[in-house]
Structure formats: C-alpha cells, structure tokens
C-alpha cells in the first residue's frame, strides 16, 4: 500500500494466529498434525508434524525373515495392502532370481487393480466427507464392500490381506471369484458415472476445487510427488508403464492426466484411473491362463548378497522397496519409499494463500494415509 494510513487506523493491531489441526481432527485422516498460521481464514504458513504412529517398521524388517516381512508391509498403507506386498515381493524375487508363473502374475495384477479401485473408492467417499457431502460415502461403500468380499474369498481377510507369497500364491483362486468379478465389472462403470455426476461434476464441488492447490510440473517433480497427484499436473509418469513389472506389459491401458495440477484435476485423474483399472481387470480376466500358481522356491529363503530397488504403482503413487541382502535369512536393510511421504512434503507450496476449507480439500486430494508416512 503506497499511501500512508491515518494514525487512527495504523493503531489497529491485527494478529495472525496459530491453529492446530490435529492430531485428532476429522479431516486429517489419521493422526497427522498440521500447524496453520492464519490471517483470518487465509493460510500464511503450514507445518505438518508427524510421527505419532511411528512403529519403526524398517528396524522391524531387519529382524524378520524375508517371508515374515510380507504381513508387515500390509500395515503401512492399509488401503493398498496388495500393492505394498507387490513391491516387496518382486524385489525379493529379483534377488532370488525366481520366475513367477504366468497365472500367478495375472492374479497379482487382478488383485492389485482391484485394490487400486478399492483404495480410490475409499478416497472418493472420504473426499466427499471432506468437502461436506455425506451421502456419496454410503453409495460408494456398496461397491467397496463387493471388492472386499472378493478379497475375503481369495485371501481370507478384508483389509490386511497378506495376499502374496514369495514365488506366487499359496492357494489358487476359488471358482466363485470370477463370477463375482464379472458381476462387479458389469455394473461398476455405470455407478462410477453416477458418482461423478453426484460429486465431481457438482457446481459447488467444482467451485471448491478448480484452481485450488495448484502445483506446477517442475515443483511436483522436484518434490517427488508421484501417482495421481503428479499426473494431475500433466506428467504422464506411471511405474506400470515406465518400468513394467509383473504382467503389466501385456495389458493395454491409458494413463489419465490432468491439465492444471489443481485439486479438481487430481480428482478427475483418480476417477479416470478407476475406469482404466476396470479395463485392465477385464483384459486380465479374459486372458487368465492355466497352470501353476506357485514357483519353486527354496524352503529357507537366503537371497545372495546384493541390493535391489523395486517400485510399483500404488494407488497413491510409487511404492518402492530398497532391499539390501547380505546373504543371510534376514535382510540387512530395507528402506520403504512411500508415496504419501513425498506427496505430503509438497503441501506447503500448495496451500499457502488459500483458506482453511481449502486445506481440507487439498489434503483430501493428495489422498494421504498416515501410517504409511510414519511407517
């Protein structure tokens, strides 16, 4: 402001104040704490504080045998347990030099894509809650329940499946699974369109998300943002396409991207991703091969000394495992590369200048899972 204000106005002392969002807050999706510096309703600064559920996973891995680690990976990102298993399992298999039978590869892809849809559905419902629409949650949970039932059929658990084993699967698929999958595929696309009309294309929703939380291409790359959050910024990066793992090179699918890198783009990318997952599911179901479900692997797993980094495309982004083996039964060091960790680190550059309600919308669009960040 160029001109000098009158003395009576200058005395007016406005204060910025700190607002503690979390660790117990309905929309931080877990025990994440965010310290907001507010000027009225406008955000001046954001500092995420975390570690409230740090369990020392990486230390635990060093004291477990290779096959015992798999159930622990479920518990980092509990919404995409299969994708975490996937990243770890293909890493150890690479170290061992095991070739997984094709049937197991296909089943892995099916489970991973189902898991992705399940996770995105939960994101969509929770995001609806974040922006104040309660009703979509209950519609979406119907579909999610169907997927969970399928997982229960194959693995026996609903959320932390412990689905994969080194070398494939312990048990083959039950017959009823494909009937259920077919039924799910037949109606899911229609329901997805309905949710898009109900929530994503709603004018209130659009006004809350378009142009909010913009992150540029260069900044997103530099922050290591991955997954749909990165693709929202018009970067066609997808581990499934860039470094194909398992059977992904056999399927035809597109990588949806956004244009502006704002919150609405990230939402739209996720919606389109579910459609792509559906098409992968269809392809995998049609081409599902016969044969073994488990490769021959040694009874005691002792990979040769060496190190490997394997990553898969999880629902939230790149899930990676950096495994160092020293030739014993237990890994020397396991580092988890978790997508939410990097995604959250970009929060400050997205939120400053927006309002409290936008913080909730932006965090929701990043699809954070806190146990994954803390590990």
């Amino acid at each position: 402001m160029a001109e000098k204000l009158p003395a009576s106005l200058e005395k007016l002392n406005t204060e910025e104040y700190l607002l503690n969002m979390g660790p117990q807050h309905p929309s931080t999706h877990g025990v994440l704490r965010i310290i907001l510096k507010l000027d009225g309703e406008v955000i001046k600064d954001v500092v995420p504080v975390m570690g409230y559920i740090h369990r020392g996973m990486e230390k635990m891995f060093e004291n477990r045998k290779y096959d015992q680690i798999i159930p622990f990976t479920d518990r980092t990102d509990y919404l995409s347990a299969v994708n975490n298993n996937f990243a770890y399992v293909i890493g150890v298999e690479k170290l061992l030099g095991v070739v997984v039978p094709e049937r197991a590869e296909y089943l892995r892809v099916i489970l991973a894509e189902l898991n992705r849809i399940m996770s995105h559905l939960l994101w969509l419902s929770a995001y609806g809650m974040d922006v104040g629409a309660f009703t979509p949650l209950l519609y979406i949970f119907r579909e999610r329940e169907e997927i969970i039932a399928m997982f229960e059929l194959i693995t026996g658990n609903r959320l932390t499946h412990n689905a994969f084993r080194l070398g494939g699967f312990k048990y083959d698929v039950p017959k009823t699974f494909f009937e259920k999958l077919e039924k799910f595929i037949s109606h899911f696309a229609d329901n997805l369109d309905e949710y898009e009309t109900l929530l994503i294309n709603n004018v209130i929703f659009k006004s809350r998300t378009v142009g909010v939380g913009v992150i540029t291409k260069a900044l997103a790359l530099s922050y290591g943002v991955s997954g749909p959050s990165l693709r929202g910024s018009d970067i066609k990066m997808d581990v499934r396409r860039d470094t194909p793992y398992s059977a992904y090179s056999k399927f035809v699918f597109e990588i949806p991207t956004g244009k502006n890198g704002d919150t609405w783009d990230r939402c739209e990318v996720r919606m389109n991703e579910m459609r792509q997952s559906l098409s992968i599911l269809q392809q995998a179901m049609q081409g599902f091969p016969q044969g073994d479900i488990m490769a021959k692997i040694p009874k005691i797993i002792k990979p040769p000394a060496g190190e490997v980094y394997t990553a898969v495309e999880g629902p939230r982004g790149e899930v990676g495992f950096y495994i160092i083996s020293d030739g014993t039964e237990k890994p020397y060091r396991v580092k988890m590369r978790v997508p939410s960790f990097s995604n959250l680190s970009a929060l400050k550059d997205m939120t400053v200048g927006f309002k409290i309600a936008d913080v909730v919308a932006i965090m929701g669009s990043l699809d954070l899972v806190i146990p994954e960040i803390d590990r």
Partner: protein
Amino acid sequence: MTPVEILEKIKTKFPGVASTEAFGILNMETEQNKLRPLLVFLRDELNFDFMNFMTGVDRPTENIIEVVYQLFSFTTKASIVIRVKLDRTKPEIETVSDIYRTAEWHEREAAEMFGIVFLNHPDPRILLLPENFKGQPLKKDFRHPNMTPLPEVK
C-alpha cells in the same frame, strides 16, 4: 539411454567415479565433495529430474555410513543409484534439499535415524521420532532400555 551410455557421459565429466550395475540399475559411488556437482549435472544435463528416495545404510564392520540417493529420469526412464561413504564416527554431508526438494524430509529422517549431520539443511528438526528420544534407531548397534530380545526358537 542405456546404463552404459549414461556411465560414459558421467565419466567424461567426473573421472574416478566407481560404478557397478545390478538388475539393470546403475550403481554409482562418489565422494563427499563431488556429490552436489554430480547431482546438479545429472539433473540438468541427463534429465534425472525425480528423486525416488534417499536414505542411509549403517555398516559398522567397515566403519562407514553410506548415504544412498536413488534418481529416476522421467524423460529417459533410466534409474541411477548414487552412494557416498561417510565416516561412521563423524558422518557429515552437504544437504541436497535445494537440488531436489523432496530430499528435505528424507534428509531429516536419515539424520534422526542414523545421526548423519546434513550441513546447511533449511529445517534440521526431527521428523518422526519423539522429541526426547536418544540414539539413532536404525544404527546396527542401537539398544534401547525397553527393547526385549526376540525369543530363540529351536
């Protein structure tokens, strides 16, 4: 770009960088003071624009702590691992958080887990551990009073 081509390009600029290849990923070792120029070179000239992660590895038998940087190129789809060996008694290294922004948090994590000091780090607070926690838990010789040894099974 194949790993060999990348290697040749790097060798011309930075002679004396030891490297091996494992599972299709280039594994490169460099020195403490060459790390930052190397990363800048990789980012600007070879398009390694994405840092997957960085972390530490404790190796008490060799008395070193390794710092590992994994980079990925979105344009060429190549990956590279860069490792720097630090003295275990006094692990110090320059921060790279201004080259790759994601390194800021990863470095904070590595600092508290391994006791590595990142010089010139913009925000050197602890990240995940409780505030009054003593020790660096991911070091191999870390012991905590509440730790109970795992039962031996015959």
